[in-house]
């Protein structure tokens, strides 16, 4: 992480923003997204039919889901067809693994909280996010991992007296 050169003009500034954008995902992502959306629509149509479609004058529980599902199929196919022009998302990069790890740490937190209260899982999560995902120093990470559960305890247990499961 290094400070970058200062742009001299608006044009340079805009160019710098463009450079900083993450690399765009290609049309293949759009095709896959569109196909997935259309499939969701197909599943929705099947589900709606089993709910009972009713009629226009007496709409049933499945009428509205059916309309949305058909819209999903149409929009999904439209995205497949226009995959080259529909605007791109972003490519996954090496840091995407960090996202996956971050998500995993949250699920671990959720699994633990019902059994051992929130304090230890919160300390572990804070440490993981500071040291591993955040590249902070050992000292900062340890201090954060101790301080955060304490402050949250004071806010959520002592202060707001919520029912959050806690050990102490």
């Amino acid at each position, binding site marked *: *992480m290094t400070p970058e050169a200062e742009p001299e003009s608006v044009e340079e500034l805009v160019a710098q923003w463009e450079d900083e954008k993450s690399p765009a995902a290609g049309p293949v992502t759009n095709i896959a997204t569109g196909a997935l959306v259309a499939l969701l629509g197909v599943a929705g149509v099947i589900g709606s039919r089993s709910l009972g479609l009713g009629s226009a004058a007496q709409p049933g529980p499945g009428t509205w889901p059916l309309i949305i599902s058909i819209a999903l199929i149409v929009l999904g196919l439209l995205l497949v067809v226009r995959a080259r022009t529909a605007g791109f998302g972003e490519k996954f990069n090496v840091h995407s693994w*960090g996202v996956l790890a971050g998500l995993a740490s949250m699920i671990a*937190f959720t699994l633990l909280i019902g059994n051992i209260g929130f304090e230890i899982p919160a300390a572990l999560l804070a440490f993981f996010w500071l040291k591993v995902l955040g590249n902070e120093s050992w000292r900062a990470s340890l201090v954060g991992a101790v301080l955060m559960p304490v402050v949250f305890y004071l806010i959520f247990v002592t202060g707001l007296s919520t029912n959050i499961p806690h050990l102490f």
Partner: protein
Amino acid sequence: MDLAPVIDGFGVVLQPENLLYCLIGVTVGMLVGVLPGLGPAATVAILLPITLTVEPVTAIIMLAGIFYGAQYGGTITSVLLRLPGEASSVVTVFDGYAMARQGRAGAALGIAAIGSFVGGTLAIVGLTFFAPFVASFALDFGPPEYTVLAILGILLVASVGSGTLVKALIAAAIGLLLATIGRDGFTGSERFTFDVLQLSDGIDFVPIAMGVFGLGEILYNLEERHKATKAPTKVTNVLPTRADLKQSSGAIGRGSVIGFFLGILPGGGAVLSSLAAYAYEKKRSANPERFGQGAIEGVAAPESANNAAATSSFIPLLTLGIPANATIAVIYGALLIQGVTPGPQLVDEHPDIFWGVVNSMYVGNILLLIMSIPAIGLFVKILQVRAAILAPITVLITLIGAYTIANSVFDIFLVCLFGAIGYLMKKVGLEPGPLVLAFVLGVLLETALRRSLILFGGDPTGFVTRPISGTLVAILVAVIAFPVIAKLWKSKTREKELV
């Protein structure tokens, strides 16, 4: 117009608890405006559980404060870091940063704060007189009108997003489908619950908003923050000179008016209005080449406009019950959770909420002006807080908050699930805003549509033949046609430019 409830509204605002929450709201708003990463929609979503512990009016005063406070804070990063904190501050960067390079960062921030204050305050006055008028007009709305209005709201929000229309509509359709999960309000039969007990009452709005907006954004930032950091420019004197004030007073006035009117349009909001105000100032200037080189009007106009728009975007929410943008959609959800349905009846049935929230904005804007001029140094220091330290704090607030909604671990799982969905949506270019907005409006839309169809005996032409819904259908058609025409026009002019 009966002014008594307006005055009573000030009584509501001046209650110590409401003043405190207003202060908390605008301070948090200012902070999220300054800090990179979390936007106002994500912040409002993350703080939803806290609002459950206080009175509805107090909750909305705080959430509204976050929303308009973020508009003030966003300016600081635009000027000092040449990084638009919020989308509505993008144009501010052009002249704001140029001014900072000339050593006039303080003047840029000062004029932005004054412009924001004037824009915000003028818009509250506009809101005070305009909103009850719109509400009285909407009292005659029946199910057909609400059907068209809800579709119109979703389409408008989808059409002005940063992505493409197809993708925005996909996001909206997914939101609508999610809203059908749970027991059908008409027949009582369960829909798409897959025999999961926790789904039989449907998915709650809070985990969806917290996940898609809150966690989704936090996860996305894990990837983003590995980019180069920027050193903030030094700020000295934030008080603009008399010449600065004189030069920008016209721009502030015009920006406020443009912002107010564009803000009322669903989807218009702060982003469009700041662009429009900037473009207008540049066009009417005697020497437009100054813009981009540090023209103070180029800071004053968009900053006045985005604050006016943030305020006036409460009009469709408070009078029609249609949220105009993503953050307002979350505030709408917060009201629903509190058992208050925003709509034309709000001003009569809950005058304390209506006028309490509206009048709290005066107080909020004064507080923000104080934070932006005398106390600006504090917020500039906050720019140095590292994202790596903030991230675990926001994650823990979100996860613990999610549990406290209903004391349920299942809700934390839902938040994680929707967080993953929100992240993936960003990666494939689907905007989360339309999904959340459509989810919020989903039940209202389905109910209105089914009632209308029963009313019309199954004949959908009924939507066109009723005078008000017919007019709304005409607007709907215009909204759909407009981008297509604009696109054609744009490609034609581009051809001309190439020639």
